[in-house]
């Protein structure tokens, strides 16, 4: 009998089984790439010290700093101290840990520093068929390259540092089939917000998603990263997209991608990875991309999203829903459009890449943001920053009245002092609208960079198609 056709996930999983799972024990899964940052690693290094253990494979480990780091140029390059003492200690601790354990660190002033999930693909470190982990739930981003990439906790960061392995139960698979062309003004961000609204914030729990179909094949790599990035917002363990010519063209020539004969060998191998015809998934959902409109969230989780021209729904008798809307200061039955906003944030591992900045800049060029509105543009990495500056995007943002910062997670989670004030509305290109996510009492509306730019110009929620 011929072997059963396998999915991309099955193949990547099987290749990394050091010991297969049994009823009594989970699989021992080998990890190819371990990304480390300052916030979720200090306690893991402390365990290695307590037990006298080395980092097993330092060459498979790359550290950077992004979550609690400042984005003000003076604090990064100007010699000013990092304003938050505890953040400065975290940064210093990571420097010490990397030096002590021989782990490569792209430190605060390094030209290749940036958000972990931006720099992995950018450097060509993240590749098809790999297992990639990081102490951060948005590690799912790297699945855009055909890797199995997922977030882990700090105890597991310690496991990978010490053994290069994790104990894992095999998750189930969910095929998300996307067909049809996205309409003008509708982006990958809108697609993933529409999917999460359909699936629910727990619809993917226990599953690894494979995004499939002609719409997905037509997305460029950065768009695919935006989609895979938010897999976790549907509760999924990871999101993956089979590698194809788009993937290979993106990776070719990147500094940490294979070169020469090694590239040819890698390419031949990567071509064997996509799911085979007839491969079975545990679940399957379909989404019609042609019907997706620019999406925006109105509540306190990413599943509470509607088309930008829609009305905030009613949910009679749902106390949690009522509480969420009270927190947001929004009313059921009312349109979300024209809701005034105080802050616009363009950045994050979801939408902080060069194409995202271009997308926002295309609407802002030669214009000014609304009076009284604060707009923060934070590139996803120092390389993104330099590339944007090389094409004059920094001038577009600055001339429009926005702030242009050094790279980092910044206002996505407000750890570094880049926060939204209590009660203020933030239209943000990031991934989470949880209560207090962008600052205590902050009210977050998630949308695409296009919608962010359009809304910045008018000072209220605006359908970008009106300005295109």
């Amino acid at each position, binding site marked *: 009998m011929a072997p059963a056709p396998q999915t991309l996930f099955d193949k990547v999983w099987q290749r990394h089984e*050091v*010991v297969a799972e049994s*009823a*009594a*024990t*989970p699989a*021992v899964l*080998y990890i190819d790439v371990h990304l480390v940052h300052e*916030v*979720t690693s*200090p*306690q893991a290094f*402390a*365990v290695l010290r307590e*037990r006298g*253990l080395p980092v*097993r494979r330092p060459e498979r480990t790359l550290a950077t700093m992004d*979550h*609690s780091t400042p984005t003000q140029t003076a604090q990064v390059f100007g010699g000013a101290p990092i304003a938050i003492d*505890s*953040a400065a*200690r*975290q940064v210093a*601790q990571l420097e010490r840990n990397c030096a002590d354990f021989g782990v490569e660190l792209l430190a605060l002033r390094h030209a290749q520093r940036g958000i972990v999930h931006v720099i992995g693909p950018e450097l060509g470190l993240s590749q098809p068929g790999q297992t990639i982990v990081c*102490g951060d*739930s948005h590690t799912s981003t790297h699945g855009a390259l055909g890797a199995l990439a997922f*977030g*882990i*906790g700090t*105890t*597991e960061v*310690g*496991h990978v540092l*010490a*053994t*290069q*392995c994790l*104990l894992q139960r095999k*998750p189930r698979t969910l095929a998300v089939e996307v067909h049809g062309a996205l309409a003008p003004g509708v982006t990958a961000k809108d697609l993933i917000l529409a999917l999460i609204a359909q699936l629910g*914030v*727990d619809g993917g*729990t*226990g599953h690894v998603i494979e995004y499939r179909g002609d719409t997905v094949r037509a997305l460029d790599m950065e768009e695919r990263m935006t989609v895979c990035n938010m897999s*976790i917002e549907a*509760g999924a*363990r990871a999101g993956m997209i089979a590698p194809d010519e788009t993937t290979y063209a993106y990776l070719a020539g990147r500094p940490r991608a294979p070169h020469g004969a090694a590239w040819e060998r890698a390419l031949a191998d990567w071509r064997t990875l996509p799911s085979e015809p007839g491969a079975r998934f545990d679940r399957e959902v379909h989404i019609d991309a042609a019907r997706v409109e620019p999406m925006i969230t109105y509540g306190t989780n990413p599943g509470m999203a509607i088309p930008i021209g829609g009305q905030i729904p009613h949910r009679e008798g749902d*106390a*949690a829903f009522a*509480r969420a809307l009270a927190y947001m200061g929004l009313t059921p039955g009312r349109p979300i459009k024209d809701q005034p906003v105080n802050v616009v944030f363009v950045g994050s591992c979801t939408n902080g890449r060069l194409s995202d900045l271009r997308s926002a800049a295309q609407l802002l060029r030669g214009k000014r943001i609304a009076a009284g509105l604060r707009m923060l543009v934070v590139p996803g990495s120092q390389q993104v920053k330099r590339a944007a500056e090389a094409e004059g995007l920094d001038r577009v943002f600055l001339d429009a009245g926005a702030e242009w910062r050094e790279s980092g997670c910044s206002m996505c*989670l*407000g*750890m570094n002092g880049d*926060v939204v004030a209590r009660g203020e509305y933030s239209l943000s290109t990031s991934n*989470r609208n*949880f*209560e*207090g*996510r962008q600052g*205590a*009492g902050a009210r977050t509306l998630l949308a695409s960079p296009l919608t962010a730019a359009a809304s910045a110009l008018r000072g209220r929620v605006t359908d970008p198609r009106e300005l295109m």
Partner: protein
Amino acid sequence: MHRFTTLTSRTVVLPDANIDTDRIIPARFLTTTTRAGLGEHLFADWRYDEQRIPRQDFALNHPDAAGCQVLVAGANFGCGSSREHAPWALLAYGLRAVVSTEIADIFTNNALKNGLLPVVVDARTSAWLMAHPGAEVTLDVAATTLTLPTGAAVHFPLDRFARHCLLEGLDELGFLLARRAEIEAYERRA
């Protein structure tokens, strides 16, 4: 890790669904390099007002919640960020188990590695617990049961290996380190 065999405790109830890890511990408290001191920031923006005065209407601040070690919560508890600071904060506060109809994947992993028991129950059991805050329940890890004051014992799913680690007080790192020969063999053939 301490052994976790049985626990008998009253419950404290937070009925909301989708209690995310930012709610459990806001990111601004994560600029720490140790596990210490997180309990005081548990549910910070829910538990305290802007002057850091405990809110009287928050369940954990109610006098009856004192000493409760079992948290009963709405569906999809622990969704969002992978921060292990969430189970650390719950444990530091004094909680030892979370009961819900659904608990997020990464949170479940993180909880088990620290001896915080994730207990997934059916909707009916959850509804009963929500309607009876302060009910005394018994959790039995060996039997994987939650026993209600009515005497009804409800089974909850628990991975066999996780159960073994809880009962013996083992951490997984020791198990992985003992797989060294297999890991080396894998690295040679990969």
